[in-house]
């Protein structure tokens, strides 16, 4: 099969379509998340959503809606406990992460027939996507993209200086919660392609590449998107030819680009 035939197969087109949309969303949200020093939150939401996947598969045979609900629940829960207790946010993320991941593992073990599906959700798979995934990705992309586009200045201000944003009348808590919910939505649509364990890589690594190469916040977003899309496309191709989980190959490519970017950054400095 030549390369054109490979890329015109329906599952490849679906993987590329979902991959590019997910890559753009995670890249943009990743810039906000890493600048707020909330990278660990992504790990918490993605790992914790395993509980939703497990419940969804056991009860309905369709995991994404339950994964989305659990991911949003984790985002809201962490925000609530942060505002209403003196426990550090990193500790709260760790609590939600491990408890919900443990719940997912318990459900999987009590329902052993679903283990093959769960393995795919952990590391992602090209063959896992379907027409429904495309619609879900496109819908989520549209909603999150519009929310960011029309509220860019407020999100920027909340990320930059929450206290000053509050004094300018911005409801900081609400916008931080919205950012966390949008992150949850983006993570869930990425789960089939990239997997629970790997998805945080595609949020954090492209944004970190952008931090190394871009001069300011505005240029961080396009650099992060470029790094993310490059990683996703090359990772999907690698996954196909090596027959390995797509999440692992995408994050590995992103890691290599990060290393190259770091070298470029050092050369530019000295």
């Amino acid at each position, binding site marked *: 099969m030549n390369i054109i035939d490979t890329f015109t197969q329906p599952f490849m087109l679906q993987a590329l379509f979902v991959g590019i949309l997910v890559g753009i969303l995670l890249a943009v949200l990743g810039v906000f998340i890493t*600048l707020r020093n909330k990278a660990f939150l992504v790990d918490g939401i993605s790992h914790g959503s395993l509980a939703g996947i497990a419940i969804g598969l056991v009860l309905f045979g369709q995991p994404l809606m339950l994964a989305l609900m659990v991911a949003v629940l984790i985002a809201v829960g962490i925000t609530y406990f942060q505002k209403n207790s*003196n426990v550090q946010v990193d500790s709260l993320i760790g609590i939600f992460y491990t408890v919900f991941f443990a719940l997912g593992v318990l459900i999987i073990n009590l329902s052993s027939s679903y283990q093959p599906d769960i393995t795919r959700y952990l590391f992602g798979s090209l063959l896992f996507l379907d027409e429904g995934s495309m619609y879900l990705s496109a819908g989520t992309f549209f909603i999150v993209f519009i929310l960011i586009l029309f509220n860019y*200045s*407020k999100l*920027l*201000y909340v*990320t*930059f*200086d929450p*206290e*000053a*944003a*509050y*004094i*300018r*009348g*911005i*409801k900081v808590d609400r916008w931080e919660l919205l950012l966390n919910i949008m992150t949850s939505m983006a993570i869930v649509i990425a789960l089939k392609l990239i997997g629970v364990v790997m998805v945080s890589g595609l949020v954090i690594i492209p944004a970190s590449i952008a*931090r190394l190469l*871009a*001069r*300011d*916040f505005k240029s*961080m977003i396009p650099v992060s998107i470029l790094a993310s899309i490059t990683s996703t496309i090359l990772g999907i191709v690698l996954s196909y030819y090596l027959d390995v989980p797509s999440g692992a190959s995408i994050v590995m490519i992103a890691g290599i680009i990060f290393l190259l970017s770091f070298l470029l950054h050092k050369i530019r400095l000295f």
Partner: protein
Amino acid sequence: MKTVIELKNISAGYNNALVLKDINLAIKEGEQLFVLGGNGSGKTTLVKTILGLVKQDKGEVLIYGERRTQEAVASNFGYVPQSTSGIRTFPISVSEVIKIECSMADNCPVGVIEHLEKFNAEHLMDRKLSDLSGGEFQRVLLARAFVTQPQVLVLDEPTNNLDVESIHRLHEIIVDYKNSGHTIITISHDDDVVEETRVDSKSRVVKLEEGTLVNLD
């Protein structure tokens, strides 16, 4: 003159440790007030309570006679914070910092360059915050607080890192600002700030001692 801010029996703190104890204070429109005190006396907690950044455990904060709301704070206040370590590393230029403040407040009477000139910071406009010295960064924070021309300016340790020339310039700006009817609250651990930035003998000085307010003037 109208009372802009009134604190009634305010007690506030963090994690069950009381920092402010039964504070009563009224600040008039057009007044300059200094709040002095040593480290840990509660100065920053006091201004953060006025602004709503810290929620009081007891008492109430009134702005123009009404219970404080975030909207009232946004319409009337500007703030120079003491601790800004979190924003120093953010990849944003000086001019963007001023522009975003204007876009949120929807009220910037002067252009960015013209405004930065007042603070001798126009040459910094394309520089990133992380590339600024401590004194340059402080001038940018001051410029940001003044740009929307709020009725009340709250300056927490405003002379931090400033050289003599910059302090003199700040004094001129404060004099103009107060003489145009605005209210200025200055917080400092350093008594010299009173002499450096005082507009006239009518300026009031109070001191916080272990969370309790003592009138000096």
